[in-house]
């Protein structure tokens, strides 16, 4: 029996190979997209699930107006042995990450951030050691622990255990002895250190009160709790205990977050260490996956229904020779499951091909291995079978219930016209189709707007170097003056902050309760960044108390009052305004321009970035010259720079990825929907061959016939578009709220989307319609 079903199924596939191909391609594209997203969702959900104590580890965070994961180092020592529920605590810190360097064989390299940790980290986070002792390897302040891969890079072919590694921390170099080698840590772990240093090291080199002062929010604290610990009670007890112990100004607001929620549910908690995801993103992508799967299924059902209507005769004959209803249902299910399994195979191949791109877009290192991702594979197979069952089941139920006599009477049970079922499904497909086109147009437009917006300063020719720690003004002046001797370099400036995020973002209140952004910069700041003065003059050397305001600050304080030289601002802290600088975007376009002042104050601590403006067309030469001079003057520091526009690209990376993903899905949905439409219209044409022939003999023109065939789809398409517009308007408004500066949702975007959707659909449909309409009527009538 089964054999016979398979035989029929295969012969049908081959006989109707075009439609089978449409079906399989559509379904495998849909499945592949779903699988890529599912793989990502699985990855995100798998974080820290392998930890044997996963249900007993909690992260401490501050639950104030702004949540923060940075806690006090003293907390751990203060509560030691006071809480029976807490089995172990571990503190982890990450400092000076821009300046973490490794030196070996006279070369200096930047490395992934160093983590500082208590020895308990190995027990709590389940980090396996290849060599060394978990109890003692972080005891000695001179110790360092590295991963195997890290060791292979710096000590190729040798066992790094016991060797000396020179690290740069802050301003100095330290020789550290390797006391343990870490085994590979799975990627889906919250904390994935390359280099671990003992927290005691910090006690040696940092200010002494880092470990004693309740004002330093400096470490991440993890608790390993005893089994069945009461979290609410413990949190209350902890806050009360600290409240009694700490100085009066310190108001503890600790809360505990389970380790398993750290990866996905921390988007509102600042001061993170480790790798984070976002549950909102996971949900959004999950929803997209579901929609794509539904589109692909609808396609599949529609195509198999119209196709089955050609097989009514076969079904009838089978009933006549004795097939019961269940036998027919089995056959139908078997056929659609066969199709979905074939599609599964293709989808799997596609997934394999797409995974590197997916890794890039999602910024993960996902793998496909049968043993490690078994549950993922099972879900994939389950999805494929489910698709087959649902699609086969719905066709089977419709056909098996028919009486054999009706089956012989050549009636069109699922004809081109009157099926509400088919129309609803088509409409859903069209709504998604139009919706995705609108979404990708809006998102792409916003991205173009972001990159094209005039920011008020030069982003393309300016490279920014972080100033080495411990640099002195004297040293810098030598560096700057040597740079200026070269033609490829136009100007150099040193400042506390360079937009959008270089250096230190500090605020200062000049007048009561009026916080202003404060940029400390030398006199060439404006010229290096091409900022314009709208009134007054630039800052001069040795001019204490002189400041520049931006337009926003000026308007806020003086409204429409005209600028006169040496206006004053400030109550206790009086400043002289020498000029007004044109508004420039201090931050990325997520944020509004805030009031700001620029001051040439010599506060060394804050001054963090060196910006070099290169001559247009001489950028490689400029970089080369800067590098040579740098190596002469700062031999112990790495020459590492970034152009401002690169930084912007980095900041917008998430949105750019989102835009790419939506474009990809739009493309996919368009392809799937078009194939489905193409399949439907060609079936309609075949089914109505006779009608078309008769109409033509009665004098119908090609246009009449083509319109007759397309009309239904055009009407459904238009109605769907009307539905899609308000939904997408709402969703896109929400998305655009991310940006302080964004495009308007003008009518033309929707009109253009409609036009694109209409053109694609019309092109797909009209091709087949015209083909059917131009066929010789005699041919089509003789067919009977």
């Amino acid at each position, binding site marked *: *029996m089964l054999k*016979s079903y398979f*035989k*029929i199924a295969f*012969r*049908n596939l081959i*006989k109707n190979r075009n439609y089978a191909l449409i079906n399989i391609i559509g379904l495998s594209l849909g499945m592949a997209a779903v699988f890529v997203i599912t793989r990502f969702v699985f990855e995100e959900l798998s974080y820290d699930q392998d930890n044997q104590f996963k249900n007993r580890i909690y992260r401490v965070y501050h639950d104030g107006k702004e949540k923060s994961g940075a806690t006090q180092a003293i907390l751990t020592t203060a509560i030691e042995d006071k809480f029976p529920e807490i089995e172990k605590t571990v503190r982890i810190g990450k400092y000076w990450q821009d300046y973490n360097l490794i030196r070996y064989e006279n070369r200096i390299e930047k490395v992934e951030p160093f983590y500082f940790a208590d020895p308990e980290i190995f027990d709590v986070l389940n980090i396996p050691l290849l060599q060394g002792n978990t109890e003692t390897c972080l005891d000695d302040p001179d110790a360092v622990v590295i991963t195997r891969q890290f060791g292979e890079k710096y000590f190729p072919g040798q066992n790094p255990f016991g060797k000396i590694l020179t690290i740069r921390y802050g301003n100095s170099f330290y020789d550290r002895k390797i006391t343990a080698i870490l085994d590979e840590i799975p990627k889906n772990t919250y904390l994935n250190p390359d280099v671990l240093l003992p927290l005691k090291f910090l006690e040696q080199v940092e200010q002494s009160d880092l470990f004693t002062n309740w004002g330093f929010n400096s470490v991440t604290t993890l608790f390993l709790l005893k089994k069945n610990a009461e979290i609410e009670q413990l949190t209350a007890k902890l806050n009360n205990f600290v409240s009694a112990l700490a100085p009066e100004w310190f108001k503890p607001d600790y809360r505990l977050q389970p380790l398993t929620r750290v990866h996905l549910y921390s988007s509102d908690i600042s001061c993170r260490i480790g790798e984070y995801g976002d549950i909102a993103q996971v949900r959004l992508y999950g929803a997209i996956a579901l929609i794509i799967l539904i589109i692909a299924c609808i396609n599949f059902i529609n195509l198999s229904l119209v196709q089955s209507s050609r097989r009514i*005769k*076969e079904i*009838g*004959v*089978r*009933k*006549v*020779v*004795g*097939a*019961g*209803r269940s*036998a027919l249902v089995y056959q139908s299910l078997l056929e659609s499951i066969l199709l979905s399994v074939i599609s599964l195979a293709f989808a799997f191949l596609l997934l394999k091909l797409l995974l590197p791109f997916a890794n890039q877009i999602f910024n993960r290192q996902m793998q496909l291995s049968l043993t490690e991702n078994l549950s993922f594979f099972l879900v994939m197979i389950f999805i494929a079978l489910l698709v087959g069952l649902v699609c086969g089941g719905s066709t089977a139920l419709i056909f098996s219930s028919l*009486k*054999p*006599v009706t089956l*012989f009477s050549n009636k069109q049970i699922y004809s081109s016209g009157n099926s509400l079922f088919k129309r609803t499904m088509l409409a859903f497909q069209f709504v998604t189709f139009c919706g995705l086109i609108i979404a990708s147009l809006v998102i792409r437009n916003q991205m173009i707007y972001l990159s094209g917006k005039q920011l008020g300063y030069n982003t393309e020719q300016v490279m920014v170097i972080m100033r080495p720690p411990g640099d002195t003004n004297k040293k810098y002046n030598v560096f700057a003056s040597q740079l200026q001797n070269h033609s490829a370099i136009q100007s150099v400036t040193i400042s506390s902050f360079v937009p959008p995020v270089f250096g230190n973002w500090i605020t200062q209140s000049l007048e009561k309760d009026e916080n202003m952004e404060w940029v400390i910069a030398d006199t060439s700041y404006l010229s290096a960044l091409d900022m314009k003065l709208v009134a007054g003059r630039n800052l001069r050397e040795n001019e204490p108390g002189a400041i520049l305001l931006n337009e926003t600050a000026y308007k806020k304080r003086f409204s429409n009052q005209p600028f006169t030289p040496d206006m004053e601002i400030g109550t206790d802290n009086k400043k002289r305004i020498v000029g007004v600088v044109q508004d420039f975007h201090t931050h990325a376009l997520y944020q509004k321009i805030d009031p700001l002042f620029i001051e040439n104050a010599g506060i060394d601590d804050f001054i963090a970035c060196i910006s070099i403006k290169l001559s247009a067309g001489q950028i490689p030469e400029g970089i080369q010259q800067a590098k040579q001079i740098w190596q002469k003057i700062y031999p112990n520091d790495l020459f590492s720079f970034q152009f401002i526009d690169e930084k912007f690209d980095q900041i917008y990376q998430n949105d750019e990825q989102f835009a790419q993903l939506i474009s990809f899905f739009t493309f996919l949905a368009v392809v799937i929907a078009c194939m489905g439409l193409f399949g439907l219209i060609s079936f309609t044409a075949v089914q109505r061959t006779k009608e078309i022939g008769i109409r033509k003999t009665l004098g119908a023109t090609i246009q009449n016939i083509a319109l007759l065939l397309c009309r239904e789809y055009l009407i459904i398409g238009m109605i769907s578009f009307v539905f899609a517009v308000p939904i997408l308007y709402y969703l896109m408004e929400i998305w655009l709220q991310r940006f302080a500066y964004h495009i308007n949702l003008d009518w033309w975007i929707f009109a253009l989307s409609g036009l694109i959707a209409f053109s694609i659909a019309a092109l797909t449909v009209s091709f087949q319609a015209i083909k059917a309409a131009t066929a010789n009527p005699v041919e089509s009538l003789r067919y009977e």
Partner: protein
Amino acid sequence: MIKLLGVSKYYQNKFDKTYILRNINLEIKEGEFVSIMGPSGAGKSTLLYIIGMLDSASEGEYYFLDEQVHKMKEKRLTELHKSHIGFVFQQYHLIDELTVYENIETPLLYQKVSGSERKGKVAELLDRFNMVAKKDLFPNQLSGGQQQLAAIARAIISKPKLILADEPTGNLHSDQGKEIMQLLKKLNDEGTTIIQVTHSEENAKYGNRIIKLSDGWIEKE
């Protein structure tokens, strides 16, 4: 074997009923060869389909081998008709995707006959109908007469008590038609009950009883 009591068939429209069959009373005994005749639209095929349990009557009672067909569940109907009734159509109705051999085999598959037994039965029939050389061909590679032969082979493979033939020679040349009619006659001689719908007086002569239908009524016998 077959007993129809007051059987009618109609389609309900908005305002009235369109009758296809009216108050049919009919008894057919085992071993008969009955021909149903009448003009187009008289209800011949409908009557045949009701007897063959492919369609159901709107009114009346139908007994097949003394079982009440009009009260039967679908599952039992399928059981009954697949073990006792074979069908032959004017358009042959072979399954296009299956070879001659597979087409003939299909009813046995639905009756869950074992593989070796199936092989034997199909081989025997192919031999009897001189179609061994054609067994791996698909229906569209055969002439009309050969297709009808294959269809008859399929109808009788499970040794049904009753064969229903709906204008079995309607699409055939006269020579081929004769051959088919002789075959049916032979089957009848071997004991199979046969009911055929036909337009041709000549074909009707192969049978031993003629039922004339007109406008849904049985005219005379």
